[in-house]
């Protein structure tokens, strides 16, 4: 009887020690779900979802505090991926957060720019270079098309120019099967 108790107690102590060690050693830093959601989001950092960036929105979704249909740049495809990942029902993009638009890049009109640096401060990804009273310009490859620089410009010199398809970004289209009417005799 005593031997059995001792054996069980010993087992409990050893296993407890192992589990305790594992809990410290293999501790997961951060929330892996947030990371996974963040990987799906387009990283536009535009704030149209109502959060100050993609990561905060991802964290809110992970906690169940935000809906999956608040990201216009991610579009329908993004919502479907989020629905898949989180096991939630698909729903169309919520109209109050905006509409899905083709990707556009900010372009500064050099004639009108007065060098006020307001757009530089507004850009969430540091894609605008310039200095006070010096002309500003957008680094096209880094621009996410978030439009945050557009409203702050006091002289309205920033235009959103849709990205045109070129030879390198052109994609083969999905093969379409031509449907022909069948005449029956």
């Amino acid at each position, binding site marked *: 009887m005593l031997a059995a108790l001792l054996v069980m107690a010993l087992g409990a102590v050893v296993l407890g020690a192992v589990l305790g060690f594992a809990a410290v050693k293999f501790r997961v830093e951060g929330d892996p779900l947030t990371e996974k959601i*963040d990987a799906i*989001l*387009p*990283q*536009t*950092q535009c704030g149209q979802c109502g959060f100050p*960036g*993609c*990561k905060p929105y991802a964290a809110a979704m992970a906690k169940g505090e935000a809906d999956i249909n608040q990201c216009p740049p991610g579009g329908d495809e993004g919502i479907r991926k989020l629905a898949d990942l989180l096991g939630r029902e698909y729903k169309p993009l919520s109209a109050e957060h905006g509409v899905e638009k083709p990707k556009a890049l900010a372009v500064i009109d050099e004639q009108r720019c007065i060098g006020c640096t307001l757009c530089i401060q507004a850009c*969430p*990804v*540091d*894609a605008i270079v310039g200095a006070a009273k010096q002309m500003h310009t957008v680094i096209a*490859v*880094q621009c*996410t098309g978030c439009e945050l620089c557009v409203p702050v410009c006091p002289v309205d010199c920033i235009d959103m120019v849709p990205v045109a*398809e*070129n*030879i390198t*970004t*052109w*994609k*083969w*289209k*999905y*093969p379409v*099967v*031509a449907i*022909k009417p069948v005449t029956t005799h």
Partner: protein
Amino acid sequence: MQLFDFNGGVTPDYHKEASTQSPIAVSPAPTFLVIPLHQSIGGTPRPLVSAGDRVLKGQRIGAADGDMSSAIHASTSGHVVAVEMRRMPHPSGLSALCVVIKADGRDEWIARQSFDYRSHTAAETRDYLRDAGVVGLGGAVFPTHLKMSPGKGDKLDTLIINGAECEPFITCDDLLMRERAEAIIQGVVILRDLLAAGRVLVGIEDNKPQAVAAMTAAVQAGGHQDMAVVAVPTRYPAGGAKQLIRVLTGIEVPHGKRSTDYGVQCFNVGTAHAIHEAINLGQPLISRIVTVAGNVAAPRNYEVLLGTSMEALLTQSQPLPDTDRLIMGGPMMGVSLPSKDVPVVKATNCILAGSKKLFPPPPPEMPCIRCGECATACPADLQPFELYWFSRAKIFGKAQEYHLFDCIECGCCSYVCPSHIPLVDYYRFAKSEIWANESEKAAADQAREQYEFRQLREAREAQEKAARLAARTAAGRAAATNALAVASDATSDATPAAAPVAKSATTPATEPAQTPSPQAALIAAALERARAQQVQPANTTNLTPEQQAEIAAIEARRAQIRAQAHPHLPPDD
């Protein structure tokens, strides 16, 4: 020698005789040449000329953009009319930057100098070939200089020269081998020396006996003991690099590996010829042999200056009236062009005129019956039907697991499919979607990194500002504490009668000197600092009585004016 075999493949009708009846004709230089800057795999070369410049034949007009790129040259002498967007020979029909040259008819060369590769390092030779614009002329236009480094070992076992030309209708390599075998062999010698290859095998499909004979004669004439011309069985796609390597050496290059890892490298005969012209003659790549075949009255091979309009070239072969489409490449792998008004580029090995009679529209696509014919025919040993399912259902991850990117788009699967499914179209769709997704993902990752860095920077700046503020406050506090200590010392030592002394010793703002509270001391210290910061105008001290009188008079006048202006307001102090 022993030959090996590759799995799959098909034997379509070759239609090669028609265009091999007459020798290569030189296509006349057109009045206008449209030379696209982007003609090879890799970065788009930077234009070196602008409108109005005079250029000579062979002059570099586009500089390679980094190492993964290849230069572009003027095909004839003349004046640059424009550097602008023109329609490209591409299935999309989109435009890209081109240099438009108006020929002056003099065809004046640059100073041509041969390049002595033996007295230069391998890196210098590679740079020379890059700047001479030499790219793979088999159709893939991969920059040749990037293939010029031997693999893991310092030497290559086998150098393979690809003259198989397995695609129907195309005969440009066949004619090149028949007519310019010596030049090709001279190019092969350069390749052999640069790559330190142990032996050279020239693989030619056995339906080209004249080319085999010409090449064998050239090898014997040169006395090259380490070179052999090998006739390989005719079966499409024996001219695929991996397929030819397998047929000639028995080596199967696995997924994700390069043939150089196994001591084998493969070059097209046209590329060898271009290397000979670039190194021995000092002529950059400005022309190529193009087969014009299909629905034309006089199919033939032409030596064409790059940038010549396809329409002008096609007219020389007299297209039949029912020609309704233009294909660049062959019927198996070629792409339909949306317009005839596009230039001949380095990738143009064949221009195929099509008609409904020659290439009848495929019967309607039927459901896949999983017969497995495509898997039997696939020369890359893939499972095309699985790739088809996943591409069709847009499950791209699975398609990649089934090695979609090992597909060479040879079209054997579509050719044998009893349901007439355009399988290659599905694979092309899936590949371009995957590439687009990858570049989108890379852009998103970069944006995330930039955003996080900005967050970090803002946090750091806020922290630094707070630290600066804290440091200043701490200095103030320390001063106040010192003052307080002095005051408390004074109060404890002195009697109440000595209080006024203590008061003046600390600070005039501290009212009850007997119990100086810490807050009061701090406020006093802050006021002291503020006073210290206030700048006294330099011209208000040490005034003479006259000046003081003058100031007083001015002040009086001011007060008077103020009283007149605002009679109801109390006077300003």
